[in-house]
């Protein structure tokens, strides 16, 4: 469902993403990990057509993102790392707007928008302007907007940030259910526990390059004896040993 080959993005001299090759199948949840500035968000922004790659190709749901961006965008839904939404629209109006933008039939919007608000416990706020929503509420609304148009591919950049534990659990269950129905999910996260429990495969990126990719078992083998859980593997691959000297300094 997602096919990436040689994807590169340079900002001047610096390569934010360098020669990324990756495939995410239908119904798969792929976790994208890496330290700050590794190039995860840049990758998501290239895949969703927000920025153009310097070189390489990305296909989403069979459509080349650079050559056929509209068709590719129609097939995917994005939850960005910062859920900025129009402050002067209400929650319900936002969903209507998103529904219309993605070509959802009006009767479908009428039926599903209130259901989604109910599901994310936003129904009492549906008629309120978004400027009065908290960060977590906006995050949930953006998720509701993505679910409204039932995309084949979900691009999630830190989707759990700002969510309360109950909503976090709900969102994880939703992702599992969507994957069962065949949706491909590409998720950037810093929360290793979520990646460990939710993702079928995990990729680890450092300095724009993917240094490891596979299932948890495969990563354990690559982890050079770092440990059994994803945190240990991640730290061993990304150079976690430096933390020991830092802790001594503190």
């Amino acid at each position, binding site marked *: 469902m997602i096919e990436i080959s040689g994807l590169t993005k340079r900002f001047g001299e610096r390569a934010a993403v360098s020669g990324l090759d990756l495939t995410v199948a239908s119904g798969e949840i792929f976790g994208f990990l890496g330290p700050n500035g590794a190039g995860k968000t840049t990758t998501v922004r290239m895949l969703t057509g927000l920025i153009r790659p310097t070189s390489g190709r990305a296909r989403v749901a069979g459509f080349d993102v650079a050559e056929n961006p509209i068709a590719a965008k129609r097939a995917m839904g994005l939850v960005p790392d910062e859920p*900025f939404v129009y402050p002067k629209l209400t929650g319900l109006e936002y969903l209507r707007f998103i529904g219309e933008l*993605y070509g959802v039939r009006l009767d479908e919007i009428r039926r599903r928008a209130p259901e989604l608000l109910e599901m994310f416990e936003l129904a009492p706020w549906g008629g309120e302007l978004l400027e009065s929503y908290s960060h977590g509420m906006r995050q949930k609304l953006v998720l509701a907007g993505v679910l409204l148009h039932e995309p084949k591919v979900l691009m999630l950049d830190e989707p759990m940030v700002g969510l309360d534990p109950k909503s976090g659990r709900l969102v994880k269950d939703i992702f599992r259910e969507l994957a069962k129905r065949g949706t491909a999910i590409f998720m950037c996260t810093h929360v290793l526990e979520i990646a460990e429990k939710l993702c079928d495969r995990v990729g680890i990126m450092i300095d724009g390059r993917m240094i490891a990719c596979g299932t948890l078992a495969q990563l354990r083998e690559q982890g050079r004896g770092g440990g059994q859980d994803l945190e240990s593997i991640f730290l061993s691959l990304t150079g976690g040993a430096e933390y020991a000297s830092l802790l001594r300094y503190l």
Partner: protein
Amino acid sequence: MSLGLLAARRARSLRNAVVALTPYERARNAAFSAAGLALLYGLYAGFRRALVYLAGVELIGRLMTWKLTALMFLMTMSMVTVSSLLTALTTLYYSFDLKFLMNAPLDARTIFLDKSLESAFFASWMIALVLTPYALALRAALHLGWGFMAAYAALLPPFLLLAASLGIAFTLILLYLFPSSRTRDAVWVLSSLSLTIAYGLVRFAQPERLLRPDALRVVAQYLEFLQAPTAPYLPSWWAARGLRAAAEGRWLAWCADAALLWACAAAVYAGLVALAAKTYFIGYSGAQEGALRRRVHSLAPLREVRALGREGAVLWKERVVFLRDVKHWSQMLLICGLVFVYLFSIRRLPLDSPDLRSLVSFLNIGTAGFVIAALGLRFTFPAVSLEGRSWWVLRSAPIGVERVMRQKLLFSAAPMLLVALTLGASTNWMLDADRFTAALSLTALLVVAAVVCAMGVGLGALFPRFRIENIHQVESSLGGFVYMAASLFYIGATVAVLAVPMQMHFRERFGKAGAWDARLAAAAGAAWLALSAAAIAVPWTLGRRALEKNEE
């Protein structure tokens, strides 16, 4: 010490921004700076021409010159005060870096000093930049030395600080008394209203009497008007009086006015800091509280709405957001005031002959076109930038950039065309212009409005600023300057090209045989259409391409 550190961070940021400029950006900035200087030179030439004329009037020339200078300072002061009211609101209460500064071990006084000086600077620099060509023109018209400019430079900082302090003080008090995010809305409405009223008052004071002594019944009355101080208790009068003293070589008198301005500025600013000690933090704290819950409607209306489609949804969103945002709709007050004053000015024009009235109706393309361009700077040019940080919603949606731009154009074109129609048709009716002139000027104005709108959206897309704190940052940006320069050039070219058929029409009116040269008229028409098409296509295409590549 802390203030020095805060100032150093600004200097460092500025330096880094300059160092980080690419060669292309440097060349572009240099080109636009050159264009800016050319514009300022144009202003200087215009002022100089007017001042030379005034100074040349026998007996009362000098009086008239200084009266005009006092009016210029009064106008500058009112503009800086109103501007600082809005700037202070954003810089003192809603700046991006305030949360960081407030959390840092800095006292509120230091933060206030830093932010209030920033407000004063941003509220006044552009207005001061326009006043300077006036001072230079005054120097040239009155044959004064460079000492006069030094005297002007010494008077300007305290004058601007005083004017800005008044606006800042008003914002401080307002946010202290009503410490809520809703006050921001009230300030927008108040400022729009006060600008409208100030503009109306200045206009209805009929400053044109200065140039028309016959408008006043007796000579004595006119002389009295010229000699009377213009708002004697305001710093604008002290500055104008000081400048006159410098021009006349009365340096002691200049010293007295300069000392008065500096002392008052120091006292008022010290008072402002004292006021801030009591009010600033309370106002800031209130302004940070989340926006009040505002129920717009229940869930029921979704059953009643009709399908919009992709493009219709964008247009609908534009309309809803505009009508709900006070800082947008409150500006409509300003437009109504502007249109009313414009029509009042046309009505007051002393035009006796039908020929002269028709000529003014034709020239109205230029003046009303300028009004439309200025409105476009406020409403059309920022349309793309106003997507702000929500731009990702449209950018990641299955809708092309051009379609979004088209909807933004559609949304802003309707009111702009209405303003053009109102200005054009009312002016023609009031002037009783002949049919040909009325049809030509009205058609031209409607086309100008449409072209200026497309130019606004196109250049707005070419120079988008999605991470802004307030809309004034978009208007006063490099892109805003390019838009104004481009639209004024187009309007000027329109008047110049359409003057060809107009000239033939006048020759016919005056009974000249063979007045019409069909080929030349057709060529002028074709040239105008080509110019208009280019004025739409070039900024639009450049803007679309730039927005498609935009990576903010």
